[in-house]
Each structure stands twice: as structure tokens, then as C-alpha cells.
């Protein structure tokens, strides 16, 4: 690939008919060979981004390029370079695994002989050889997903889009899929995957962008994002929701507490060292007459990164409406 970036997205906007703003000016770039994750709750704009990059959806503003080729201006050239594995599958259930793979290759106009051996290769690679001539409707969820990914690879794309590759899979199949993704990364493929699983992005991605409400709220390597939070997290669940304001005032006034977020009856405090701050924090709350139901401290996770960036705790179904954020969120 000649271009510096395998994928380049600049101030991308998508407004659907009816005025729903799915993407409100997002930017990110993916280097060739990189595994990049778009992380966010449902409705954050992940699939909209991938659909635009896969030429399935027109952009409303900004620019998107794959290998330096503008997706809006030259979609045909982009299609030859990309593999697209959608959230909604795309396997023809009435056809066999082999037929699904073969049709895919035919539509990329691969020569017949080369296609036959490529199909065999992929069936073996994804451990579908034994089921190759069975209708895909008989496949398990994990097998269907592997066939989906294999179909995206028939023409040896430079860039593979994996939209929610493990959604709906059981933990075992998910672990298998993670291994597949790591294997693909070793092949030198550029991978853009979307997920609403924090752990998945953490495990698989070299870099990631966190999307929320159609915007990029944080981007970088998982380690850098976590390190950026400087320190640990203490979460305090109050016995009475009504104490939240008072509790926040108490925690905000403590030495060593750098930020406090409130969500419902739960407070999140950012501290230099969780273990040493915990006793004084609890003592201060006790003095103020605030009853505590539960308390925990942890090293920063992507969940904290999300919380810090958006001001609300992570829920894969989608965060609360904008404006519900706590004031202490340092951005």
C-alpha cells in the first residue's frame, strides 16, 4: 500500500433522513497493518462509520479514504481493496459454506482455478472443512461468524472491516474469534473492528477511538489512554441517593483526589493511590454522616477512560442523554 494511512477519516459527518445525526465530525487514521478498534455503546456511530468506509452509505460531510482513495469519489476502487464483515452477518443460509465463499470470489472476479484453491485454503484456515458442503443454516453461531470472516478475505483485501465480530457469540466462540483476529493481524492485514465490549478493544486493538454520540471522545493506545488517567479509581456506592451532592463535596475537598464524578447513587473518585486513599476517604464520608453501601478501588480500565471522557458509566446499550454528565469530568 502506497498511502501512509490505510484508513483516514476527517471530520466525517452522517445525517440520516429525518435529521438524526449519527456522526458529528469524527476523525481518526489507521496505519497499514494496524488493528484499530472503534469502541462505543450501541448508537455511538460505529456501524455508520464502517458502512461509509465500505461504500454502503453516503457521507454527509467531511472525508473518508481507504489506502488514500476517496470512498465517495471512487467507490469502485475502494471495493476491490476492502473486505466487509457486517454485524448482520451476510451469509446466504440456503447455500453451503463453499458456495458462499465461491460466490464471493466470483463477484471479485477471481480466476476459477485460483478461486478453488483459495476457497480450500480458507475452509481449512477457519476450520470449516468438515462442514463445507452443508447448508450454512445448519452451522452454529461461531461457525457462521467464522464463515462470515472467511468470506471477507476471499480476495485478499488490504483492509478488513469487522463490525461487531463477537456480538451474540458465547464466551467460548468469542475466545476463538479473538484468536482468529490476532491471526489476521499477524498476516499484516489492516483491521478496523468495532465493538461495544471494552475488554475486546483492550485485548485486540493496538489503537482505538472511543465513540460516544457520534463523536470521538478519546483515542490512542489502550495503555496510553489508561495511563492518561494518572492514578486509580475508587467507586463509592451510597446507601442513600440523596447524599450524593454532599458526598461529592466531601470527596472533592480531600487531598489527593483529582476528580469526582457522580452517577445516580455512585461516585467515582480519581486518586493517586487507591489503597492509601481509601481509609481517609471513608473516614471523611463517615464524619459527614454519609452512609456507604459499597466501595471498590481499581487500576484504571477502559471503562474509566470512557467514564472520564463522557462523564457517565459505560453501558453497552448506550449512555444516558448528553447533559447528564457530572461536572468533575476532566476532558
Amino acid at each position, binding site marked *: 500500500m502506497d498511502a501512509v494511512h490505510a484508513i483516514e477519516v476527517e471530520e466525517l459527518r452522517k445525517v440520516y*433522513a429525518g435529521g438524526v445525526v449519527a456522526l458529528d465530525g469524527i476523525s481518526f487514521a489507521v496505519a497499514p497493518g494496524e488493528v484499530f478498534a472503534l469502541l462505543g455503546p450501541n448508537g455511538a456511530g460505529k456501524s455508520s462509520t464502517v*458502512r461509509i468506509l*465500505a*461504500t*454502503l*452509505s*453516503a457521507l454527509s460531510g467531511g472525508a473518508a479514504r481507504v489506502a488514500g482513495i476517496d470512498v465517495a469519489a471512487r467507490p*469502485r476502487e475502494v*471495493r*476491490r481493496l*476492502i473486505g*466487509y464483515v*457486517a*454485524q*448482520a*452477518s*451476510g*451469509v*446466504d*443460509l*440456503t*447455500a453451503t459454506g463453499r*458456495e458462499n465463499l465461491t*460466490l*464471493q470470489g*466470483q*463477484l*471479485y*472476479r477471481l480466476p476459477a482455478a485460483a478461486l478453488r484453491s483459495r476457497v480450500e485454503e480458507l475452509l481449512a484456515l477457519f476450520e470449516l472443512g468438515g462442514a463445507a458442503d452443508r*447448508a450454512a443454516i445448519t452451522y452454529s453461531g461461531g461457525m457462521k461468524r467464522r464463515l462470515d470472516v472467511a*468470506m471477507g478475505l476471499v480476495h485478499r483485501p488490504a483492509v478488513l472491516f469487522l463490525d461487531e465480530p463477537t456480538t451474540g457469540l458465547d464466551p467460548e466462540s468469542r475466545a476463538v474469534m479473538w484468536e482468529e483476529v490476532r491471526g489476521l493481524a499477524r498476516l499484516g492485514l489492516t483491521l478496523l473492528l468495532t465493538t461495544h465490549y471494552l475488554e475486546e478493544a483492550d485485548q485486540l486493538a493496538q489503537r482505538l477511538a472511543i465513540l460516544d454520540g457520534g463523536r470521538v471522545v478519546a483515542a490512542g493506545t489502550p495503555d496510553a489512554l489508561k495511563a492518561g488517567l494518572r492514578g486509580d479509581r475508587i467507586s463509592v456506592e451510597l446507601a442513600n441517593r440523596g447524599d450524593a451532592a454532599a458526598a461529592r463535596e466531601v470527596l472533592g475537598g480531600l487531598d489527593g483526589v483529582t476528580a469526582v464524578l457522580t452517577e445516580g447513587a455512585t461516585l467515582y473518585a480519581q486518586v493517586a493511590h487507591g489503597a492509601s486513599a481509601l481509609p481517609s476517604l471513608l473516614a471523611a464520608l463517615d464524619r459527614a454522616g454519609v452512609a456507604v453501601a459499597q466501595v471498590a478501588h481499581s487500576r484504571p480500565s477502559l471503562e474509566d477512560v470512557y467514564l472520564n471522557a463522557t462523564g457517565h458509566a459505560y453501558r453497552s446499550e448506550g449512555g444516558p442523554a448528553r447533559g447528564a454528565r457530572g461536572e468533575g469530568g476532566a476532558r
Partner: protein
Amino acid sequence: MEYAADLWHLFARLVRASVRMPVFLILSIVQPIIWVLLFGQLFGSVASLPGFGAHSYVQFLAPGIAVMTALFGGAYSGMGMLADIDRGVLDRLLATPVARGALLAARILHSAAQVSLQSAIILIVSAAIGARPHGGAAGIVLVLAVAALLGAAFGAFSNAIALITRRQELVIATMNFIVLPSTFLSSMMMSAKLMPAWIRSAALFNPVNWAVTAARAGFEGDWQLLPRNLGLLAAFTLAAAALATASFGRYRRAG
């Protein structure tokens, strides 16, 4: 060239899917046979009405049922398109370099092929119970071509409705609304000579009647009514294909 290859591969996929549903296959063969036998019996005596103009009702009915099968066969083609949309298959295909038009053309071609095969079976069964193709081999080819054209037209129309509404219920409701009235506003089962005047007038603007008239002209070897009705039918098929193409373009832009 690439378009033709794409079309062939996509058409082959649809044929494979049909052939793998034995129930569908058997029903789509048995149902038209039942129609010929049932309607032949039920309405058999109308041929003896004064002024009907044909001696044998089966002779009159055979090309009509061939057209009816084409109409019914094409009308629900859009359901397959909706299944592809719902399962993500269409998106997956659209992400490949496949010629966009071939995706739609494969479905229309599949409708046409399916209904002309069914029509051939109807002509064979009709022949077994006494219908005779006076138009000879050319007449038979013509009946099948008319069935293919009408199947393609309603296949295209059904796909257009599917792409516009994206709802199975609406495809079924729309097609039910159209199919039966257009059947009875034609000379499919009743000689035009015995129709009330207003139905005879309405039939002149009914594509299904153009198809019935053209098919019967071929079957009877009475070529006089053929050119006009075949021409109108072909124009209707092109218009339906244009509508489907526009709907597909609209669907893709709305992505």
C-alpha cells in the same frame, strides 16, 4: 462481460436456493396443474354459452392459466429481496465490486425463468386433457415468452415495492390488491365477447390482459391480435424494470 458473469453467478445462486426447497419445487409444479384441472372442471360449461367463441374450455383456458401462473409467480419475488436485506446478504454483495444492476436483474431473470418453466408444465398438462396448440412450435414458444415477460414485469414490480417499503406485509398486501382484480379484469377465464362492456374497456388497459391476449393468439395461431398486445406487454415490462432500477438506486442512496 463482467456484468454478464455477475448476472450468471447471482442467477445460479437463486436457482440453487429454489431447487433446494423441495416443497417449493413440488408446490410450484403441482399448483398450476391443479388450476388447469380445477378451473377446467368448474367453468367448463361456459364454453357452451352462446357467443363464447371457443369450442373447448380447456383449449381456451390453457394459455390463460399459463399467464396466471406467471403473474402469481412474479408477484412475490420481492420477498426474496427482503430476506436478503434482512439477513445482511444484500449489503455484503453491495460491498463487493459486483455490477449493481446485476443484483436486481438476477432476481427478475429468476422470476422469468421460473414462470416460463411452470407455463411449459401447464401446456403439457393441458395437452393431456385435450388442448391443442394450433400455433405450433412458434405458438408454444410465444406463450412461454409472454409468461417470461409478465413474470419479469411483476417480479420487477414486486422488487420495487419491496425496496421502497422494506416490509413483507406491504409487499403481500400490494400484490394481493393487484393480482386478483387484474386476473378478473382480463379474458383469462372468460371470453371477452361475454364480458360486460365496462370490463371489456378496462381490460384494454390491463397488462395482464395484454399478456393473455398475446399468449392466446400464439396458442391458437391467430396472429392478428399479437403484435399490439405483445408490444404493449414488452413496454410494460421495461417500465416495471425501470421502476425497480430506480427503487434500487434510491435504496442504495438511503444506506
